[in-house]
């Protein structure tokens, strides 16, 4: 005999819907449990763990050189910057003197990675709000960066170019020329992005005033990267805790105060311009010298705790190492930007429509392996 189930925790008009783990807008295996009243979002509960690979636990098993390789698989769109975080942490712990050449190249590669990541984000951002053409424009320009990376370090996605002590190889002889070509090319293409999407009236109507995050909330939720900066929270690690060669260049922090999805969008567009400017300032002044400091084959960090943070394309990535003096870390913790940024989704999406949720999620720029690790 069937008995009628009465859901006391639902209001009569509300219903529950499963967005993901396979859903085009979640960009990966993120599952959102939505409570909806018609079209209006009442509650968003992210359900994580579908791509958890226990990277932090694996780090306890691996040597420091090996750990670098694991970080590629976290936020795979900022692979180089993730590598840099671990390398910097290890180098600081060993108190290695890193050659200027390495520092400059690291910064250039990092900014190229940031542009590539934002290109991809811009493409899928347009796709999420229904403008499918942006995807191909974004990927066209990202492709050029991937080609540069492929020539320089042999990989297009998981680069593993940074190693503790420097770079795995020296840069390719074509590197400088190709980067300059790219900068010249991309300067003509970024205004095209604006013409296609930024200034579109439908796009503006979709984005302005949607998913507003106040500065106080941005700070208390631990938002970082473009998400925090769009709310007026100056949180660029490159400005406040400069690393590598970033203190040799001048650039503006992309800051806005509106805190809505359109502000987050504009912050990322401006960041691409700033990254171009950083690359331009450094590409002609790459110093001569060694590309690597020789370290011991087995790296043993002195006993102690070490923390290093970098600014990835998504925000602040922190690496926290506890070493007991052996060749493996006792415990290694990644503070990933995506996890904190996802945590505020419920806060800013409630009350909006399903379309707003998708637009908001797109501007949070979530990379699911970064959240799950």
């Amino acid at each position: 005999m069937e008995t009628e189930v009465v859901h006391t925790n639902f209001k009569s008009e509300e219903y529950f819907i499963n967005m993901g783990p396979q859903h085009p807008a979640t960009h990966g295996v993120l599952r959102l449990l939505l409570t909806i009243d018609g079209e209006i979002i009442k509650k968003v509960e992210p359900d994580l763990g579908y791509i958890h690979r226990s990277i932090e636990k694996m780090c306890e098993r691996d040597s420091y050189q090996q750990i670098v390789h694991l970080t590629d698989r976290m936020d795979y769109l900022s692979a180089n910057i993730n590598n840099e975080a671990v390398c910097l942490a290890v180098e600081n712990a060993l108190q290695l003197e890193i050659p200027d050449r390495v520092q400059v190249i690291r910064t250039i590669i990092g900014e190229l990675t940031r542009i590539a990541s934002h290109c991809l984000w811009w493409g899928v951002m347009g796709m999420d709000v229904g403008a499918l053409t942006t995807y191909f424009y974004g990927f066209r320009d990202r492709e050029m960066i991937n080609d540069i990376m492929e020539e320089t370090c042999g990989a297009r996605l998981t680069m593993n170019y940074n190693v503790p002590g420097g770079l795995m190889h020296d840069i390719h002889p074509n590197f400088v020329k190709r980067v300059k070509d790219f900068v010249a090319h991309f300067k003509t293409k970024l205004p095209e992005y604006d013409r296609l999407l930024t200034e579109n009236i439908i796009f503006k109507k979709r984005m302005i005033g949607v998913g507003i995050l106040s500065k106080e909330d941005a700070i208390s939720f631990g938002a970082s990267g473009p998400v925090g900066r769009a709310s007026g929270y100056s949180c660029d690690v490159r400005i406040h805790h400069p690393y590598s060669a970033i203190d040799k260049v001048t650039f503006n922090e992309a800051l806005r105060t509106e805190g809505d999805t359109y502000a987050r969008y504009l912050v990322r567009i401006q960041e691409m311009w700033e990254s171009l400017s950083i690359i331009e300032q450094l590409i002609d002044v790459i110093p001569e010298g060694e590309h690597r400091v020789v370290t011991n084959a087995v790296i043993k960090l002195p006993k102690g705790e070490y923390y290093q943070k970098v600014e990835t394309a998504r925000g602040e990535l922190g690496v926290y190492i506890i070493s007991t003096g052996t060749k493996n870390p006792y415990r290694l913790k990644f503070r990933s930007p995506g996890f904190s940024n996802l945590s505020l989704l419920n806060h800013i999406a409630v009350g909006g429509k399903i379309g707003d949720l998708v637009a908001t999620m797109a501007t949070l720029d979530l990379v699911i392996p970064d959240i799950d690790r």
Partner: protein
Amino acid sequence: MIQLRITEHIHNWLSGMMSEGAVSIVEMVLIAIVYLTVFAIAGLFLVLLERRVAAWFQLRIGPNRVGFQGLLQTMADAIKLLTKELTGTEKADKFLYNLAPYFVIISALMALAVIPFTKEFHAFDINIGIFFLIAISSIGVIGILLGGWSSNNKFAMIGAMRSGVQTISYELSVGLSLLTMVVITGTLQLSEIIEFQKNGWLIVQGHIPAIIAFMVFMISGTAETNRAPFDMVEAESELGAGFHTEYSGMKFAYFFLAEFINMFIISAIAATIFFGGWLSPFGITESIPELGVFWFLAKTMVLVFLMMWFRWTFPRLRVDQLLTLEWKYLLPINLVNIVLMAVLVWLNLTIRL
């Protein structure tokens, strides 16, 4: 003047063999077959065209391997879809679930019947042609609602509800913008409307209000066919595939084809009402009436391209913005426009060449 008179020949040949009643039945079947063929070819061609146009917008090449320039690509896709398993949800309302695609495709087919391809190629020339078109085009939404409702899937359900809201709203603008033009012509019959345009296409005759009506018609026509930027019904980044999430194989293909046929129909109506249908510009090929098909298709294809252009450059609206656009902007504009047109006709300010 050479006239092909194919239909007359067939009619005489059949009349020689059987009674009058049987002749009309056979002729109906023949015409139905001709229209089904046109329907299939138009659908398959438009799918290919859309893919090539999209590729052109998106820095790609598009399908160009199967047949000359990919002409057989959609044929191959259709054959693949025919051989695919028809899956469905277990607790679906089977009867309605299976019925839904036919509503969509039949409404598209019926609308095709009243469209004048040329003076001779016009199956169903009734005196309430425009009224018939408006009525028939609203049947399709029943299929979408049924499909979404009976699939037993929440995404499909949301898609179907959005579709209901959208189609019912935009129906008004489609109807009113066409009626604006009827104010000039004074007839609802499509063949007479085209005859009327021998003194200049209606978009010229009615100048300002006609241009407004044309723009409103194209916007609301795009919304009627559930195409981007009004594709809330499918909204793949929000709802997966919307109302046809649970359909597979040929049933899915019916929905898919119907969308393209509807796009063709909207463009064909616009070409007929605003741009003189099969009339050649300035009557340059008036002595060769067979070229009417060419002119009709050329005008329609330009408008089809316009709709594809919309789709591949604009982001999607949100569902409340969609309704705001219709009820707060298009509908009032339309109502004022009809009055404006009436005044124009009353004061005899239309431009007649």
